[in-house]
């Protein structure tokens, strides 16, 4: 691993807690994430916040954008869609740009292409494989 890269990364310190915003219209996502990351939460590796819509997510970011480094967002939501949210984030929050991962029930090429085009850092499909997600999160923190 390049030392320079680690030095320049906002997540260079392993022990710095990572703030993650999860956006999904399904309310049960909340208990699911809490349970799945209970160890990480306990060890203060991650801190999770939840938004039930794109609008809610933007509102949260307005207040806490400097703290949030990772956003996990569903695509299909009533009202503002995940893609719209992504576009807004990429337009308004570029210093520092948060890492955005899209999570969707539709893992088709079109969805993937659109998400990546709008500036998503990664793309995951439901049902969500939490082991994979953890791996990806660990990659980012290292």
């Amino acid at each position, binding site marked *: 691993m390049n030392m320079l890269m680690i030095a320049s990364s906002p997540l260079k310190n392993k022990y710095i807690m990572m703030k993650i915003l999860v956006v999904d219209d399904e309310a049960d996502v909340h208990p699911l994430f809490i349970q799945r990351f209970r160890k990480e939460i306990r060890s203060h590796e991650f801190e999770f916040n939840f938004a039930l819509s794109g609008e809610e997510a933007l509102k949260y970011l307005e207040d806490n954008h400097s703290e949030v480094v990772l956003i996990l967002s569903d695509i299909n939501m009533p009202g503002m869609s995940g893609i719209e949210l992504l576009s807004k984030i990429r337009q308004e929050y570029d210093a520092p740009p948060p890492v955005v991962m899209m999570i969707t029930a539709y893992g088709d090429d079109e969805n993937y292409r659109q998400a990546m085009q709008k500036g998503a850092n990664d793309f995951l499909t439901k049902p969500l494989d*939490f082991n994979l997600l953890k791996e990806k999160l660990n990659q980012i923190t290292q």
Partner: protein
Amino acid sequence: MLLLLIQCGTTWSQDTLSTYLITSDTTIEYKFSKAQYQILPDKTGELSIDEVKSDIYAKQFFTKGKSPTNIDTNVNTNWYRYTVKNTLAKEFSVMLHTNQDYSDFYVIRDGQKQTHYKNGWLIPWKDKDGLEGDNLIPLTLAAGEQAVIYNRIENRRPDTQYSFEVKLFNAERYVFKLFKERQGYFDFPFIILSIFAGFCLLGGLFNSFLFIIDRQKVHLYFSLFILDIAFIISPLYSVVVLRNYPFTTPVVVIISGAGLAIFFIQFTRYYFQTFINTPKWDKVLIGLILIQCVPLLMLFNIVPEGTLNWVMFSAILISCLGTLILFLSLRHKTVKSFAIALLPFGVTLIITFLLVFAAKFKVVIPEIIEVISAISFYSSIAWPVLYFTWVLFKQYDWQKREIIQHALDAERLQKEKEIERNALIEQQKVELEITVQERTAELRQSIADLQSTQKQLIQSEKMASLGELTAGIAHEIQNPMNFVNNFSEVSNELIDEMTEELEKGDVEEAKAIASSIRQNLQKIAHHGKRADSIVKGMLQHSRASSHQKEPTDVNKLADEYLRLAYHGLRAKDKSFNAELITDFDPNLPIASIVPQDIGRVFLNLLTNAFYAVQDRKKKEKVSGTPFKPTVKLSTSTDQEFITIKVEDNGSGIPEQIKEKVMQPFFTTKPTGEGTGLGLSMSYDIVVEAHGGTIKINSEEGEFTEFTITIPIEPKTIIS
């Protein structure tokens, strides 16, 4: 007086003119010798009696006997001079006679005034003196009286000058003779000719009548021919008309004579139809007709007097005999009747010849000869007239029969045709019947095909709406599956942790973990059911409708389909977004409906609403106007009906197609995107199957509002 006579005698020419002495009153004709009259040719024809009597001309008279060569035949006018003396002891009447065209008599008697008499063929009847018809002028001389007579003769036919004889008639005896010859005033030839003319006239009229009826030219020409004969032989015309206009006689004679030949030849041509049968001979006949113009030249003294008769009779004879011989040689059937008609001509010729021969040898009494010749002459005219009239009438009759036969044939033919036509119609009927049956079978097949197609279409519409649903269904399944999978996995982990805690002896912690596990299991169950109901709904939708009405919570059904429709569309078009407003009446009664059918209606109406807002959004994007797509689904109720409203602020329905949107296969969507059956099927479901209503309220570019009412209790539906 004597002096005068002597003077006259001396002044008269070198020729001595001897006085004609009447010595007997029993002689009929008093013929003058050549020495007893003198001639003075008048070249100009303009000399007057006074001039002629004057010294200059008186000397120029000469006796015919002395210098006959002096008579110039080219001179039309001659003066004759002679003296006659009644030597009888009584008054005596003589007749001055002329057979010339114009004759003027100037009678100079002793001690009396000169008297002037006129007569001659070309002098009109009324201007004639004496006995007009016989060209006789009575002259009565007293006993011993002497008269000098100047006779001016003008003749249109110079050659007749030769035949002129100077003579007088015994008035009493000559008139008596004429009277006797004519059997009193009963003029036999006159009557015979009149009868004959009448006969010919009748024949002519009869043939004219035939011509008028059948328009056969042969009738016309035969009619003209015998009418012409009637005209020529009829004394009526010449007596009544011509005698006062005698100078027209030559013209009338020439024209009627030429006409006779022309009509006869034309008759022959049409009778034998030479122009068809013998075209070459026909040309000869036409030539003979044209030749008939030649006699007209007689009027100008170009051709001699007899030309008319020659031309006319030769033409008739040539055409007659020539045609006869020609057609005899051709053995043409018409020749027989023609020959029969002309037979009397031949017989007459022979009889005439025999009579002439007989007369010569005085075998037969002259009167008998006369009678026989008269009979043969008249019969030779009468017979053909009669015969041809009969033949032509026969022809006419035959033609008439033929025409009738033709008419009958035509009628029969028409009847046959009609029968044939009827048969044809009958046959066509049968064929038509077969065709109709075939067509009916085809139509039945078509209907059957159509029905099966309709079924297929309905099925495909179901499938199409299912297609619209799949994406929504996928989402709706994936989401619960996500929870089911993950909660079950995490519960597994929690059980491990719980075991660890129990081993450690931390019961409190283990209990807390167990509570989480229970919650998780509840969530798993909840999401499992959620997936299950989605799958069931899908199956229900695609399955053929049972048409079984069952108590249904319409609010729940509406919500379910709203989600399906929305997510379906979202799955297809990521950029799509719309505000969903639901206004469900919580007091909505449970209605008896066919849920999958009404669900289909919801799906159709909602899909249309989403499509409309999406469409408007695309348009607004172009124009830049801010637009918030909104779809509202509401339910309400009164005591009888459930009312469902689907409202959108989309592009609306244009006024002109509002009427059509419920029609099958009507769609505004691009080809392949809609079957055009959605609304039509919705109409059937709501109106036909549930006894409800569908109302559309829309403004183009503004909004669309579908209002569905469904009776809460099923009505008896008249199908």
